[in-house]
């Protein structure tokens, strides 16, 4: 569903993404982890069509984003980390506008919009202006829009930012149901518990390069081996992540405090 091959992004002499390759299959939830500034958001923005890669190839549902951008984007749903939307539209109008951009038939849009708003618990806000929404509500509205046109693949940048526990639970359920229906989900996150709980496979990016990939268990085992520990207790994902990406920094925190 989503396939990226040797993706590179350079800003002058600085290489933000350095030869990243990744495949997210049908129905798979793929976690994309890495410390701040590792290249996660840059990669996600390139797949969404917001940034032009320096080199490399991106395929969405078999369509090359560089050669057939409209066909590739039509199969994709994008949920950015910050939910900027038109403040002077109502939630319902925003969804209808979004559906229009994806060429959805007018007759089908009304029912689908109501269905999505109900799913994301925004039904009673359908006729309210977006400017009166909280951050979490805007985030849920963006998610409603991303699923509106029944995409084959979904790209999510930090899905849990600004969501309350109920909202977070709702999103996890929706993502699981979508993956069961065959939707491929590539999810960048800092919340390792979410990744551990939801992802079928995880890729870890550091300094623009993928340094590890596998299931949670595979990553834990990899980290265990990398640290040179004696066989036995494999670390939790958080510990594995910190080991793989270069240490926890806890010692420095102690010294400062």
């Amino acid at each position, binding site marked *: 569903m989503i396939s990226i091959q040797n993706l590179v992004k350079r800003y002058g002499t600085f290489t933000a993404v350095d030869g990243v390759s990744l495949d997210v299959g049908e129905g798979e939830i793929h976690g994309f982890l890495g410390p701040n500034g590792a290249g996660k958001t840059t990669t996600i923005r390139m797949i969404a069509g917001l940034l032009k890669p320096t080199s490399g190839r991106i395929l969405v549902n078999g369509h090359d984003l560089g050669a057939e951008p409209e066909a590739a984007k039509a199969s994709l749903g994008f949920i950015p980390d910050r939910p*900027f939307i038109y403040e002077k539209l109502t939630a319902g109008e925003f969804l209808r506008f979004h559906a229009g951009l994806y060429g959805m038939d007018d007759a089908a849009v009304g029912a689908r919009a109501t269905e999505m708003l109900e799913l994301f618990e925004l039904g009673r806000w359908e006729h309210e202006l977006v400017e009166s929404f909280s951050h979490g509500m805007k985030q849920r509205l963006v998610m409603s829009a991303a699923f509106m046109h029944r995409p084959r693949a979904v790209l999510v940048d930090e899905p849990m930012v600004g969501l309350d526990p109920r909202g977070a639970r709702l999103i996890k359920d929706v993502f699981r149901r979508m993956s069961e229906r065959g939707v491929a989900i590539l999810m960048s996150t800092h919340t390792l518990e979410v990744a551990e709980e939801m992802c079928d496979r995880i890729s870890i990016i550091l300094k623009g390069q993928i340094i590890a990939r596998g299931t949670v268990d595979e990553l834990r085992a990899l980290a265990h081996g990398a640290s040179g520990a004696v066989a036995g207790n494999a670390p939790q994902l958080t510990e594995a992540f910190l080991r793989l990406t270069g240490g926890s920094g806890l010692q420095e925190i102690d010294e400062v405090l």
Partner: protein
Amino acid sequence: MVRAFPYLLAPSFWSSRNRARRRERGDGMRAAFFGVVALGVAGAIFGGAFWLTQQLAGFADFGDYLLRLGLSWLFLSFLSFLAFSGIVTALSTFFLSDDLRLLLAAPITARRVFHARFARTVGLSSWMVVVFIIPVLAGIGVGHCAPTAYYFVSVLAVTPFVIIPVAIGTAVTLLLVNIFPARRARDILMLMGLLFAGSLVVLLRMIQPEQLLRVESLPDITDFFATLQSPVTPLLPSFWAAETVFASLQGRLDLLHLAALWTTALGLVVVLAAASERWHFAGFSKAQEARKTRFTRFELLTRATRLLPISVVRRHLLVKDLKIFLRDVSQWSQLLLLLALVLVYLYNFRVLDLDRNPYMSGMIKNIYAFVNLAMAGLVMATVCARFVFPAVSSEGAAFWIIRTAPIPLRSFLWSKFWTGLIPVFLLTELLTIAANHFLGVAPLLRVVAAVSVLLMSLALVGLATGLGARYPRFNADNPSQVAGSYGGVAFMIMAVLFMLTLIVLVGWPSSMYLWYAANPRVTVPGYLTAIGAACFVAALVLSLSTWWFGMRTGIRALEEMG
């Protein structure tokens, strides 16, 4: 150690300093352009004040009387402007500014916050008046050979003069915000301000000042001065400031009025500080509270667009742009001012008394037709700079929605073009046709003007849309900021150059034709007909290529973005 309140103003100074240090593309050109314009305007104001003062000096006591009256009027007209500016600025500095959350959460006394915010409000709302009044007072001083003390006293008089109306404006805001939510109050104020400005423009025009130039209206001059004298009341700070400045011009020191200015200013600040301590936090807190927004659904608009022969995507883009524009008071309210200016524009042509000189009237009417075309072009360029150029930037941080959607960015830009073209074309075409009708110009020129407006609309809207996409400012707070950016200035320069070239290209052959038509005994040489036709073709090519250049530049810029 508790730092004095000016410390709270430091971030503003540091931000300005950092902005000045940061170099962006086009900064030099922009600074040079605005610098030359600003110096030119200041020089013209200084020259005008100097010349007028010297002329008045020739009328001895009557000249002094007129100068004194003029100063009173100058300060009086600034008084209302400052008060209104104070209301609007205080709304932002005291209640809506983002950094207020940081300041109010910090352990700073309410009085220090008030002093810092009030100093900022005074600075922001009065700088324009101060920048204008400096060359005026300097011109009067030099023209009147005033003593050095005049300049010091002027500074001493202007300072409390600007504080008083801004303090009153701030007090009004404090009251309003405690009654209405701050954001609603801002909308109400903005609308009131624009209605006030619009009606003022129309009213000033309806007074028909051109009547004063007529010899037959001279007996009414004394009545006119009596009318001028009436609003100058000794109870207003504008009168005190004018009297203080006028006395120092004569080499005297009017301590009474100077003291009145300072005691009133300081008294108001003390009272306002106490009122702010009492009510500011309540108003600020109210401004944070969520409210149910009132807005219009525009269902009819949505239904009407379904009748248009355009694609689904274009229709949705159009509906979205129209709804966002019509729901934003700061956007659509600008149309009221535009409407007022249009009315004045048409009224001017309606009252032009060209028949006073029958021998010249025919020729002058036709010359006016081109003046009208140039004016219409200027109106069009201004409307394009203000409404069409910021169209892409107005997507702001939500532009990701368009960029991730499966639509070619070219379609998006063309949608912006058509949304801008239709109202701009209709407005300017109607203006031109109506003005030419009032003038009674030759039929040929009416057709030439109408076609020229169509060509101008295509070229200028295309150029504005394209350059707006080439130089977007997605983080701008408002469209005026976008219009004043490097790209906006570049657009205005290109638009004016285009317009002047077009008018020459269509004006020269048209006037030649009319000259030969008025002198039927002279035959038109063949080469002139050929040059005339070439000029019309060149006008067409120039317009279409400007349109093409603009849109192509914009589409390329969008496609290469990122």
